[in-house]
């Protein structure tokens, strides 16, 4: 059979398939059950047409046409179902906590990478404040003269708080994405982000305690700090997972190890987003509010932290087992 004859004979079906395909892409809701069934049978017929065309006229335009027709239908028919609310709920109730518990070692290592430098920097800066200029990252050094005068920088005017809260939350989410994504550079970038944040936290704490305003800073940090620092640990764990897969992939290829690690890591990163939004709200509205007593702020910090860890440690145990 010549390509022309083949085309003449099958043209109506291909045209029909093409039309259905356009309809399914542009107005999927207008498809009836009969249409969907017809789409299936037209597709199967087109695949066998493609097989014939590839055998008999591998280089003809006709074959290229059929290839793209079958290709477009294939990606429509085999596409993943769009996200249902049920799938999203399961993701947060089960998948995220399970992924956390499976990778709790990475989380602990990330927390150590954050807190060991923090404690060292804190002790050093407290003993000898001159060391602060070596410990603190360049951006935070501007705070040193202010701290020396015994003034905190944490006062935020009341009307500015919503904006401050939004900036904090988005900035922290961005940093957690970076800690995760940076894992692909063999984990180096993630480790850097963790140590950097540890030095910043510890250095400022040590310095403020040296000049007698440490309790003021603690009071400011406590309400949002428990969740926020834990989230840095979560994002760090995600990045360390990627890094470990590249450094020691085990018996599979580095590419496969990376893909497997990313599947788990992304769950930890997704968990960071709502947590940081909550932490951002607290940091914007509760932490700088001088009318809220310290005890309440401590309660907020411990309470949110307890809820968070309860979710990660207890979540999805029933469904999973």
């Amino acid at each position: 059979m010549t390509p022309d004859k083949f085309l003449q004979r099958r043209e109506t079906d291909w045209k029909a398939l093409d039309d259905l395909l356009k309809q399914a892409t542009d107005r999927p809701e207008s498809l009836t059950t009969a249409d969907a069934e017809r789409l299936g049978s037209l597709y199967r017929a087109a695949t066998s047409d493609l097989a014939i065309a590839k055998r008999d006229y591998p280089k003809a335009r006709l074959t290229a046409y059929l290839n793209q027709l079958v290709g477009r239908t294939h990606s429509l028919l085999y596409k993943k179902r769009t996200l249902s609310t049920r799938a999203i709920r399961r993701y947060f109730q089960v998948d995220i906590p399970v992924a956390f518990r499976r990778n709790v070692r990475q989380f602990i290592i990330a927390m150590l990478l954050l807190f060991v430098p923090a404690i060292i920097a804190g002790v050093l800066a407290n003993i000898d404040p001159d060391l602060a200029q070596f410990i603190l990252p360049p951006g935070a050094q501007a705070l040193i003269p202010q701290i020396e005068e015994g003034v905190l920088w944490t006062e935020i005017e009341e009307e500015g708080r919503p904006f401050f809260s939004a900036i904090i939350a988005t900035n922290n989410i961005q940093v957690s994405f970076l800690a995760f994504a940076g894992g692909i550079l063999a984990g180096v970038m993630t480790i850097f982000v963790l140590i950097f944040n540890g030095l910043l936290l510890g250095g400022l704490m040590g310095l403020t305690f040296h000049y007698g305003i440490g309790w003021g800073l603690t009071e400011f940090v406590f309400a949002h700090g428990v969740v926020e620092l834990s989230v840095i640990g979560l994002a760090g764990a995600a990045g360390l997972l990627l890094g470990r897969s590249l450094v020691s992939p085990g018996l599979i290829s580095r590419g496969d190890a990376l893909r497997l690690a990313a599947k788990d890591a992304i769950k930890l990163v997704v968990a960071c987003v709502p947590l940081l939004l909550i932490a951002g709200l607290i940091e914007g509205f509760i932490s700088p509010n001088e009318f809220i007593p310290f005890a309440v702020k401590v309660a907020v910090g411990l309470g949110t932290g307890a809820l968070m860890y309860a979710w990660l440690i207890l979540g999805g145990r029933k469904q999973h087992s």
Partner: protein
Amino acid sequence: MLEENFQLDTPENVQIDYEVAGIGSRFLATLIDQAWLLLIRGLILLIGGSIFFAFDLEDETGIIIASIGLLLFFLLGWGYYIFFEINWNGQTPGKRQIGLRVVKINGLPVSASEVIIRNLMRAIDVIPSAYGAGLISMFFTKKSQRLGDLAAGTFVIFEQTEVSLSEVKNRNRVDLRFVTPTERVLDMPVEKIRPELHDMAEDFLARSKDLGEGQARKMVSDQLLSQMYTQMELGNDEYIVLSTAMKFDFIRQICVRLRELEADTKNTA
């Protein structure tokens, strides 16, 4: 480095050929998407600003509007690609316009988690600036994957959209009304030439203007004639002595006869 074609085996046991999308087409799609993002950001600013000034609001309310705007900007920047690639099966407005689609490494459609992975990895793909890391990675991987694609196990294909049915039907055949086959061509068993070789010859004639008069035309003419002679089982390659212009005319004459044959079979059918 680029492996240009990718074959997907379908459950129907047919292979679909895809072209791996390279840096150029993906750059174009990114430009279109960035233009859309710019437009939407402009609209957010415009709407937020006009609400503020039209109702003559106090500064405090203004700050709340600004905070919402900031969150929207952030959501847009990270969410745009994720939203579209999940809901449009691996496509964004830019990718759809250029004809690109993100697929799994085995050619199957992407899942939501893969879309999120490849798009959050942008944080690293864009460093040190202008997708520097991503470009290097795309350059050194066979399937032109940026780091996000490597982590998610995805790559981008070029879905052929340039062939339409009407184009296949009315192939622009050149006008050969004034070409008369010589005795020699009339004697040839042209019915032995296979239809796809005829197609190729017609394609060649239609595009010969683009090929110019030079080496390319000579090479293709030689290849076509040699294949035609093989298929007609004519042993001696007598055409070799002809000049390129004469070879070209020879092909045109053969095509005239092939078209007559084609018309005959159509009429009898």
